[in-house]
Every structure is written in structure tokens, then in C-alpha cells.
């Protein structure tokens, strides 16, 4: 259980590298975790080849949701949008390096859900995006 608050998480929570907004941006999407009110917004810049050239997140919430957003943004800069679409639950767990129960999993996956709803251009972020 101590794993849950590995230093990397506390570190990314307290000192995130990618917190902020991009203006202008090509894609922007935001959503809440209905269970706890955690909020994540993600802005992306995508070049003509479909590559993510820059990205930022903002929001509020628990260490897990905010740290996983920061780690996720870090991991996608330079990736193609097609690769971003392929990201799944396990990728987030790998980034965090921990295992999570179903409730905290929703915290961890919020940023990925927002990101994927954004790159797919959906009106709503749904849980199936991160199954």
C-alpha cells in the first residue's frame, strides 16, 4: 500500500511540469470524475503530420489524478495522435508504477479519458475509452 504514494507521485503532484494552458491550441477537452469532483482539462498542439508538439493539463483533484495527468502529458509529447488513441489503462498504471482498486483507478484514468475524448473529437468522455 505504501507504493500508492511512491515518491514519484507525490513529486509530480507537488511539482508538476506540465500544468498550464496552451493558447492557441488545436485540441482542448475537459471533464470531471463524477465520484469525487476531480477535474482535468487538457490542451494539445498537433502539427500537420498528426504529431503532438506540445501539451498541458490543468485541474484539481487528488494526487493520483493530478500526478497521472502530469505523467501522461510528459509521455505523449512527440507522439503521434494515432499512438495516443491506442493508450489504455495499463499504460497509465505503468506510468504510475502501482496497482489500484476500482475507485482510485477512475482517478488515475481521468486524464487519459479526457485526452482520448479530445483526440477523438467526442462530445462526452466515457469510461469505455479507457477500458
Amino acid at each position, binding site marked *: 500500500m505504501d507504493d500508492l504514494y511512491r515518491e514519484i507521485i507525490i513529486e509530480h503532484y507537488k511539482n508538476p511540469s506540465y500544468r498550464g494552458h496552451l493558447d492557441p491550441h488545436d485540441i482542448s477537452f475537459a471533464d470531471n470524475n463524477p465520484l469525487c469532483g476531480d477535474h482535468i482539462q487538457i490542451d494539445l498542439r498537433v502539427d500537420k503530420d498528426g504529431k503532438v508538439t506540445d501539451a498541458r493539463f490543468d485541474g484539481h483533484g487528488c494526487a493520483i489524478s493530478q500526478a497521472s495527468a502530469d505523467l501522461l502529458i510528459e509521455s505523449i509529447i512527440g507522439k503521434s495522435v494515432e499512438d495516443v488513441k491506442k493508450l489504455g489503462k495499463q499504460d497509465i498504471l505503468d506510468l504510475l508504477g502501482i496497482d489500484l*482498486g476500482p*475507485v482510485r483507478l477512475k482517478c488515475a484514468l481521468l486524464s487519459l479519458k479526457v485526452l482520448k475524448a479530445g483526440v477523438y473529437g467526442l462530445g462526452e468522455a466515457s469510461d*469505455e475509452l479507457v477500458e
Partner: protein
Amino acid sequence: MSLDVTSIRKQFPILNREVRPGVKVVYLDSTATSQKPEPVIEAMNDYYRRFNANIHRGVHTLAEEATAAYEQAREKIAKFINAPAAREIIYTRNTTESINLVAYTWARANLKPGDLVILTEMEHHSNLVPWHILAAERGIRLEFIPVTDDGLLDLDAYRLLLSQDPKLVSFTHMSNVLGTITPAQEIIKLAHEAGAITIVDGAQSVPHLKVDVQKLDVDFLAFSAHKMCGPTGIGALYGKANLLEAMPPFMGGGDMIKEVKLRSFRPNSIPAKFEAGTPAIAESVGFGAAVDFLNSIGMENVAAHEHEIIEYALERLEEIPGVKVFGPSADKKGGVASFTFDGVHPHDVAQILDRDGIAVRAGHHCAQPLHEKFGIPATTRASFYLYSTKDEVDALVNGIYNVKKVFG
């Protein structure tokens, strides 16, 4: 493979119950509700004694465990009826609520005055009254597939009804009075060709047959845990995801929302959208255990065993003078035998059988229009399940002869 009924019966503590000293219960009322095996009872005890907690919103260990168990049970249920995704399973209280949920949401959002809904004459009140209420409120039209004298649906008449542009066809997969197994796949195919949505009342089929929603291509399937070795207080509605997603919510409250403001809300995604408030958590665990139990035996084996019993029961009942069994022959029905006995009211038959510990049901079995059709106010119904034996059929037959004696 034939069932090892002796070892199955050992798992049902109630089957050893003596209703009076020396008089063991002969439980022939499984169509009303099934008995529960020990693993189902114990799964719920384990929940209450070890990890009871409210779900979804909790991050502590008990809440995580309870949430996981609640969702795992949903997955088991989805798999049991071969639903493509667990989120297509909505927990309800029972079959009745499942059908009402569709009536209050899909139907109110999609049916206009004058729209045609096709039901059948053999429906349980649960698949009649919700549509009566809607007809009174909204002016929809109801038509009924007739039942033939031998208890089958008249498919020619159905085809004629289909030419009237129905919007919904809602029908039972197995009659709880006649035992008739309806040709659901064909009825659904024809309904879809006519552009209608379909609801199958699976209250009696899901517990007794292998039901495959993808093979049936049914849009909604309603069933109850308590009739399939599971607890009371929980049932399920299967719905195709695209339909469920497009439907407005039913009840408002906790868990069914994504966000609530003082004056408005955004609904959650499915299945949570339809599960307002603290759900039947212990019961979901019991429901999952019931599915495990049935899977361990195999639904094909359950159906085969019941077929053997009903064949024997029909044979024995029909040899009693004055007994008339309703419904089709054994090859077209499940383990249900509803009958009349000349000169004795079904209530009295049931009451006198009870002296011998024999538990049967008497009345209209929540299918009054069907009884009216057959010109009788009530029947006595014996029904069977995976724990039923031929000895119990014999006890029933002897019991009926005892009834004869009382009424002289």
C-alpha cells in the same frame, strides 16, 4: 449428462425443512421463486461479515472490495446471457422493475399517441400493467398475439399485427402458467423486420434455459435473481448499449449523475445512469454466486433435467380422473404444470396438499387475462427446478388423491 440431484439437493438447506413434525417440504413452487443454495447464502454472509460498504464513492478497503464485487457480479451476469458488455446490464429490483424501467424511459421518449405496442395473451401482469398505464397516459395502442387452445402463440395472427407498423413487441420467453417456451428468436426477427424494438420477459427463461441475447438479437431482456437461485431484492435489465445510452434516466439520485448543480444535473454513463441511490449490494454478490452455481451445473443440464421431470409429471397427472393440465406437450414447454381438478377450487387443492408438505401455488399466477381466455378463474400450479425429483411428482399425485378424499 443427467444431474446428480442428490448432491444438488444437499446444497439447499430448506429442502430438509419439515413444515410440521415429520412432514418434509416438497417444494413445487419454483416458478414463483426458487430456493437458494448454500453458496449463494454464504456469499452474502461473507459480504456482510467481511466487506460490507457503500460502493463507488469510497476509497477505503471495504468500499474498494464491495465495489469490485458489485461490478464482478455484473460481469458474471453479462456473460451468463452472453451480453457483449457488462455495462449493458442494469441492476433492478426484479423483472417487474426492469420492464417498468423501459416503459418509463425508452417508451415515454419514443412512443407517441396511436403508436402500436404488441404484447401476447399469455403475459404476466408485469408485462401488461406498465403498458396499460402508458396507454392511459399517452394513448398508445395495445394489440395481443393470441394464444391457441394448446397454449402456443398464434404466429399467423402475429404476422398480421406486424403489418400495422408496431413500434414495440414485448413478450414472455416462457409462460409462467402454461410453461410454453415461445419462439423468441423468430418473433424478434419478424419484429425487427417490421421496424419494432423488442423486449423479452425472461423471468422464466433465464433461470431454466440457456439464453443468449446476441443469438436472440433481443433489444431488452428482463429477469429476476430470486427465480434463478439468487436472492430477493435484485433483478436485471439487459439492454443494447446504443439504446440504453440514448434513453433518458429513470430515477434521480446518487450515482446516476455525472455532475449536479442546484438546478440541473448531467446524467452518468451507463449502467450507473439507471442505478440511482445505494443499490442492492449484498444481493448483487448473491446474484453473482447464483450465476456461478448455475454455471457449475450447466444450463443445458438444468433444462434436460427439467424436461425429464415435466414429461413424467404430465404423464402421471393426466392419469388422475378430473385433472386437466393446461399448455402444450412436454417438448414445447418448461417445468410448469398448471391444472384444474374437477369440483375443487385450486386454493383448496393447494391447501390440502400443504398438509402433506407439498408446496404448490393456486390462483391466477399474475396472468388473469390468460385464465379468462381459458374460462377459468384459477389453476393449481406445480413447477420444477434443478432440485426436483420424480419422487416429488409421485408425492404430488398421491396428494391429489388425498384432496379427492376430503371433498368426497
